[in-house]
């Protein structure tokens, strides 16, 4: 019985994927490109060894960002501020991490702690504003994103800027060797390819931890019942204000890890071209993966695959923006089909229950 429902849930993203391929093909046809050829090029490019490493590297921050968003979603809290939170965390961690050198594991652990602490503090502001001043978290986190961007721009050019640098653009000092996370290439025998970020291990651990936290602990239980029915949650003795702050801080803590894959594995410093937009992309991945750790992993890999494989399109005279349209199609359609299937499952359960009543 349960198996049947699981299969049904999985069918929604597959349907969404198929339809969005169809719609994208239509658009390609309209602009005079051959959809079959286009997808073939994308696919062939996407499954090359180099591409696969790139896809995995890209999916690490996407996945963690999705988890940060999902923690809030689970209790009906919309943390749109993952973007600002991870950028703040990455900047402060990059700066402080470059000031000293200790044994690699300790050094990395320290950088992680600094990033997590900074991001969760930043997120806590939105929690405080909601609980004490009644400001909706969507508004406050969006505003905090802007404020964060300004703060980052200012502090990167002043206090955090690399001293005595002859480099034109502002950037923090490079992390010492002990603060760089070693790549995983030797474990997979792919030393001829580019670095596979060591942060992959942390991302997997984060996924497991997220699952444990939300589905196994009492705190997670409180989050989930507040998300489904805030009134019943309150009547059951949950202090909603306290829970909002906890959820916001937890979400911010996960957000702190988002920028660390690129920071520790590739950039090794915070620069002007440090990847942005991961916080917003995480919202989409959380939706696609339905806040489930496994679903979000698939979602992150899928989006990373689309992003990477679209890189080849410009060379073939196809606008690579088609990839962004596909992502949007997938999200729109999947939301609809998740709801369709959810209703169907509820109907089935009612049917089963009434059968039982007749016996």
């Amino acid at each position, binding site marked *: 019985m349960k198996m049947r429902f699981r299969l049904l849930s999985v069918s929604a993203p597959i349907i969404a994927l198929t339809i969005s391929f169809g719609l994208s093909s239509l658009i390609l046809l309209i602009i005079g490109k051959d959809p079959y050829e286009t997808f073939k090029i994308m696919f062939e490019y996407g499954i090359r060894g180099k591409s696969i490493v790139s896809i995995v590297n890209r999916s690490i921050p996407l996945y963690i960002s999705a988890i940060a968003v999902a923690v809030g979603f689970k209790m009906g809290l919309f943390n749109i501020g993952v973007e600002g939170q991870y950028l703040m965390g990455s900047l402060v961690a990059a700066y402080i991490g470059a000031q000293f050198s200790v044994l690699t594991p300790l050094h990395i652990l320290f950088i992680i702690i600094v990033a997590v602490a900074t991001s969760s503090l930043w997120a806590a502001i939105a929690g405080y504003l909601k609980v004490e001043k009644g400001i909706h978290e969507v508004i406050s986190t969006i505003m905090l994103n802007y404020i964060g961007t300004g703060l980052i721009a200012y502090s990167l050019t002043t206090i955090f800027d690399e001293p005595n640098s002859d480099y034109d653009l502002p950037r923090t000092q490079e992390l010492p060797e002990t603060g760089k996370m070693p790549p995983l290439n030797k474990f997979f025998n792919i030393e001829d390819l580019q670095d596979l970020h060591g942060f992959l291990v942390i991302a997997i651990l984060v996924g497991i931890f997220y699952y444990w936290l939300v589905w196994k602990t009492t705190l997670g239980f409180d989050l989930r019942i507040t998300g489904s029915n805030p009134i*019943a949650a309150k009547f059951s003795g949950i202090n909603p204000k306290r829970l909002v702050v906890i959820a916001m801080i937890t979400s911010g803590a996960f957000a702190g890890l988002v920028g660390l894959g690129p920071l520790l594995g590739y950039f090794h410093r915070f620069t002007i071209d440090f990847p942005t937009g991961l916080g917003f992309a995480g919202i989409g991945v959380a939706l696609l993966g339905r806040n489930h750790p496994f679903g979000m992993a698939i979602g992150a890999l899928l989006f990373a695959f689309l992003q990477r494989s679209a890189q080849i399109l410009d060379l073939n005279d196809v606008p690579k923006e088609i990839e962004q349209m596909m992502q949007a199609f997938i999200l729109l359609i999947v939301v609809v089909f998740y709801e369709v299937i959810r209703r169907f499952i509820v109907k089935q359960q009612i049917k089963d229950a009434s059968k039982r009543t007749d016996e």
Partner: protein
Amino acid sequence: MKLAIKLENITKTYPGVLANSEVSIKINSGDIHAIVGENGAGKSTLMKILYGMVKPDSGKIEIFENNASMSSPKNAINLGIGMVHQHFMLAKNLTVLENIILGIDRPLLKNIKLSKYKSEIQKVMELYSLNIDLNQFVDELSVGEKQRVEIIKVLYRGAKILILDEPTAVLVPQEVKELFKNLRNLKNNGVTVLFISHKLDEVLEIADEISVMRSGQMIDTVANKNVSKTELAEMMIGKSLPTPPKRVTLTNEEVILKVENIKLNDGDGRTIFEDITFDVHKSEILGIAGVEGNGQKEVVEAIIGIQELHSGKVLFKNTNLEGLGTRERLESGISFIPEDRQLQAMIMDMNLTDNVIIGRQNIEKYKSSLGTVKTKNAVIESEKVISTFEVKTPGTNTLATALSGGNQQKFVVGRELEDSPSLLIASQPTRGIDIGAQSLIWEKLRNSRDEGLSVLLISADLEELIGLSDRIIVFYQGKLVKELESENVTPEDLGGYMTGLKK
């Protein structure tokens, strides 16, 4: 005699539920015809079919001896059918007059000629002897008056057949009398009234003919004078009525809950309730009577710590509860059955195992030292509740939403009694559920009381309140106006105190 409605072999199935099975009924024009049946018997579906909200799978409908097929309520209104829903569809910040004409005209940019409507509506009101001040705001009306507005609204649209869905559920006895007087007037003026209820006394008082439904089938239609209450009840539930267990009052001197002079203001500084003082003894059921909105709901919320008191104190087993959160209060041995099971007591999209934990998620039984949920214990407990409270469900893994209302409520009551609390606060514990579930819950409440449980019972069902309580206190306009021993109280007495007519 002319027929107002004739239904032949109406069948309607929902996935897994046969809501109406080959239902046939004949309703004489100008009669008051009652349809009785337990919750889930198929009454609502049948009415929705008549009002064009639901299309039957098969069967024939005749209205005033003409074939009819209704595809929308608009259709039904044009055929002369009007419906007064249990929950009123009124805009409370508009006047009565505005509410009645709402949706009739579409004067996008032109002036509404209120005076024209006013005289037309007054004619309708005179014809049927219905009285109401058309200029009053709906917000200021009593429940009974609001209902009258709904009836006028429907009649003004030309209804010759009036469907009333559980019209007395929200009324106090005096208002019920008034309603019945009005319905008789309608009947005398040729209106056919279809009266849906499960309160047999009322049905016997007002109806000319009574149709009984049970599990989607029409059991029988009988003339009022040929049937007794017991016969009706037996037709409804399909078996002999359970006789209520004899009451053994063991009320103890020990005070479990002491409420002293409590007062609550709302955000605007208006008083919700004040000067409320009462005790609940060990092994006692204390009933609270009051028309909705007179402060009883807020008193309960203050006791469990959802509302913060302005002054006064609440002592539970001689401990002042001040400063304690809802969680601490629940864990100290207070159980709570909120009035709305779907909105306040259960998580509809979670299964029964999860639902059994709600309200107790932090006690040792369900929380390990690591902070994880002890799912195994939850499964055991939910199985226990399912078996002792005869909850009909395929298993503990079923979503709460898949259960019928009665089974959901049995589960909630079972959950709240599971950990042998010292005090149970039960708000409308049997509202809107079938007789079977109701009598089981009554029995369990009585048994627990006899074993030492104290109960604070809030109920709009006065029979239930009188039948279960040892003592009853009455709330009116935020004050405790009367305390009564329940032995020799009648619903009429209570209704008098509840509406401020008696003092």
